[in-house]
């Protein structure tokens, strides 16, 4: 940057800005309906206008203002983008460059462009109505206001506001202390005082609203015109008392200016709530559920039928409240998918490929946090598909495929999970090369037999995908292991399928919610564990006899299918003896099943998921923990992990014959 000269710095930045706008305009020429591009162009022009004015380039600001205005109309859907409009703005751009360079005598050229712009817009400028209404009989304003409790913490100084009112005219200010809490409950940083102000001024109402502009949406404010006969005489004591009379509370919905009206109009359809408040609500519901399970335990242990019936009622209410709260956090994945249009567009240009994005199931709803956290992993996957999965147009044509490659993003709900799939019609993953690479890295033995599913999981191994371009999922230094970790952090998993020459499909299965699940509480040895109920298929008894018979083998026959099972007592090295009547809890993910042998099934349990400590993150068998009604802790089993262990065990046995 050139020393301390803001103008020089501005020239550099403006040049870059114009390059971006130009690129946007050119792209828009290919895709007239692309609102992302329209917005990008609009923002570029808007910023240019603003900084131009700031650095003294008035002619530039003035000229750019017209182009920005045109794109604002496109943005708002009042006008559609046309090739002519784009052409005019492109030439306007060159003019802007000239203005930035400090060219003179450009007015005529500028005017000519603007005339073309008007013609291209083809719509007459709407004259905005002057809404300001003069009020001749007004002597001033009577206002009454209260600031939000956190105003002072957030940097609003009430004294400064009062000073600002005083600047408008003679002000009579009375503090209302009726809502100041008792000293013991007083939080000194909160603002509990209200003010009534009689303001003698000929300033318009909007001037008063301007004083409160930063807090207007959260505060109580009424502004009423002061009739001439209400004007207090200077220094008259009675007037002060009169102004102290009953304070009219602002009626709900009675707005104070346009902002309040806009807020009211919106409120009818939906309410915007900051995410933290939802999180706080969810926490409280979580605590309620824990307290409820404690109550249920006490009630269940006694003989008091009335208590038990109340407890059941609360259990029902807590469950409904949990569901209702969960729904509040759900948003459609459309917002997530929408962000990929631009990415695909950019990737197509970068890779010189023709790529079409198809989306499906955008109305599927997922927890808001999940939507946010899925964006990055999906970008990695989509980018890899475009970079390496899809063939260049010529190659596709030679293969008899359509020259345009397709990337499909789809979402659907399946039980307690939402499945998000990225599917391309490219060349697919090269099985042999993945295998060779994995062997070279010592991840698998040359003799090892692996199914496609297992083999493709290797690409998520740390260090694997960052290596040379082996598969369509490698390269770019984007570690697929990061993708996998993020997804697993959401208690989800990734499946990869691929058909040579036909393309690959990557499916992320993510639980619908993060905070609370229905669980099956079981006991293994002396400790209790939670099995996510959504994964439970059935529960069977394992008699001692059968247990003896199955020693050395670890499969049971379930409706003509062999299902591997794991003795959790042994896996967890509890050092305890098995109960005489052990149970097998059969759990499944996708097509895979595994039976978990436990000592006792305690029952259903509303499980509020708490994260494991950072010091336990390397323990793969558990996804989290929960607090039980008696204050004890139960660990939550990671079904995906246990199924994998079970499958591996089965294969070992099969290999051993």
């Amino acid at each position, binding site marked *: 940057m050139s020393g301390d000269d803001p103008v020089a710095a501005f020239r550099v930045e403006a040049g870059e800005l114009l390059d971006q706008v130009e690129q946007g305009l050119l792209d828009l020429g290919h895709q007239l309906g692309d609102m992302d591009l329209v917005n990008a162009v609009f923002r570029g022009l808007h910023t240019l206008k603003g*900084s*131009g004015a700031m650095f003294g380039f008035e002619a530039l600001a003035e000229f750019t203002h017209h182009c920005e205005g045109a794109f604002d109309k496109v943005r708002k859907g009042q006008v559609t983008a046309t090739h002519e409009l784009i052409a005019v703005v492109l030439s306007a751009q060159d003019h802007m460059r000239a203005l930035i360079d400090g060219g003179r005598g450009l007015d005529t050229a500028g005017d000519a462009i603007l005339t073309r712009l008007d013609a291209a817009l083809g719509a007459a400028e709407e004259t905005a109505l002057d809404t300001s209404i003069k009020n001749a009989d007004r002597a001033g304003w009577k206002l009454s206001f209260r600031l939000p409790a956190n105003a002072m913490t957030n*940097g609003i100084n009430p004294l400064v506001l009062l000073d600002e009112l005083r600047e408008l005219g003679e002000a009579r200010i009375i503090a209302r202390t009726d809502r100041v809490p008792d000293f013991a409950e007083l939080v000194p940083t909160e603002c509990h005082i209200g003010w009534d102000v009689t303001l003698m001024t000929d300033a318009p109402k909007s001037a008063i609203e301007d004083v409160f502009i930063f807090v207007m949406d959260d505060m109580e404010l009424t502004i009423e015109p002061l009739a001439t006969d209400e004007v207090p005489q200077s220094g008259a004591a009675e007037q002060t008392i009169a102004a102290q009379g009953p304070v009219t509370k602002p009626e709900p919905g009675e707005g104070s200016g346009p902002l309040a009206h806009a807020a009211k109009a919106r409120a009818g359809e939906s309410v915007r709530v900051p995410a933290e408040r939802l999180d706080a609500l969810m926490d409280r519901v979580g605590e309620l559920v824990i307290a409820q399970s404690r109550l249920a335990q006490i009630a269940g242990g006694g003989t008091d039928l009335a208590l038990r019936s109340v407890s059941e009622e609360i259990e029902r209410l807590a469950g409904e409240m949990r569901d209702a709260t969960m729904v509040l956090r759900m948003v459609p994945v459309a917002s997530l998918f929408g962000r990929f249009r631009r990415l695909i567009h950019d990737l197509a240009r970068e890779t010189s490929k023709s790529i079409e994005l198809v989306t499906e199931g955008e109305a599927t709803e997922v927890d808001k946090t999940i939507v946010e956290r899925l964006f990055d992993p999906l970008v990695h996957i989509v980018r890899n598909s475009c970079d390496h999965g899809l063939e260049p147009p010529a190659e596709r044509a030679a293969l008899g495929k359509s020259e345009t490659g397709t990337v499909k993003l789809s979402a659907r709900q399946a039980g307690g999970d939402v499945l998000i799939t990225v599917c391309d019609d490219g060349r697919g993953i090269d099985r042999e090369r993945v295998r060779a690479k994995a062997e070279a890295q010592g991840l698998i033995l040359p003799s090892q037999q692996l199914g496609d599913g297992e083999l493709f999981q290797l690409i998520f191994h740390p260090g694997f995908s960052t290596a040379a371009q082996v598969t369509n999922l490698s390269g770019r230094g984007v570690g697929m292991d990061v993708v996998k970790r993020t997804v697993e952090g959401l208690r989800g998993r990734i499946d990869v399928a691929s058909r040579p020459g036909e393309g690959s499909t990557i499916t992320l299965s993510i639980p619908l919610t993060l905070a609370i699940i229905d669980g099956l509480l079981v006991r293994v040895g002396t400790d209790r564990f939670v099995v996510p109920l959504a994964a439970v298929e059935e529960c069977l008894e394992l008699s001692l006899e059968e247990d003896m018979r199955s020693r050395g083998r670890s499969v049971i026959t379930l409706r003509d299918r062999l299902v591997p099972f794991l003795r959790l007592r042994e896996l967890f090295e509890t050092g305890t003896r098995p109960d005489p009547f052990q149970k097998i809890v059969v759990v499944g993910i996708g097509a895979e099943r595994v039976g978990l042998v436990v000592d006792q099934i305690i029952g259903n349990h509303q499980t509020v998921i708490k994260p494991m400590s950072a010091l336990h993150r390397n323990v793969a068998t558990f996804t989290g923990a929960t607090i039980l009604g008696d204050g004890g802790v139960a660990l939550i089993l990671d079904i995906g992990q246990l199924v994998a262990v079970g499958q591996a065990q089965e294969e070992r046995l099969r290999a051993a014959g």
Partner: protein
Amino acid sequence: MTASILTVDDSASLRMAIRIALSGAGYQVYEAADGVEGLAKAEATRFDLIVTDLNMPRMDGLSMIRELRKRPAQAGVPIIFLTTESDGEMKAEARAAGATGWLVKPFVPDQLVKIAKKVLGR
């Protein structure tokens, strides 16, 4: 005492413009290039006002505001954010994060000085 103002913006030219405008009005101006730097400087010194952009690398303005408001020592420090959109959503979000007020870009130096005076009362 001269009021001290921290301006946080990733655009060097905008920072410069803000500094010139505010120091011209008699304020002491300090600069930070992103949220991380802004947070570090704000923690080292209590400023009378912080003027921050929202869109920045490393740590955006919203996150910085949230972080600042988490610290009791920063309670009551006015924070003005700069936004290109006159969009109500962004304002609501920034206010919920703890911002004091905003200034819509583009602005002229006088507007910025006016806002600083409005919030500081001097």
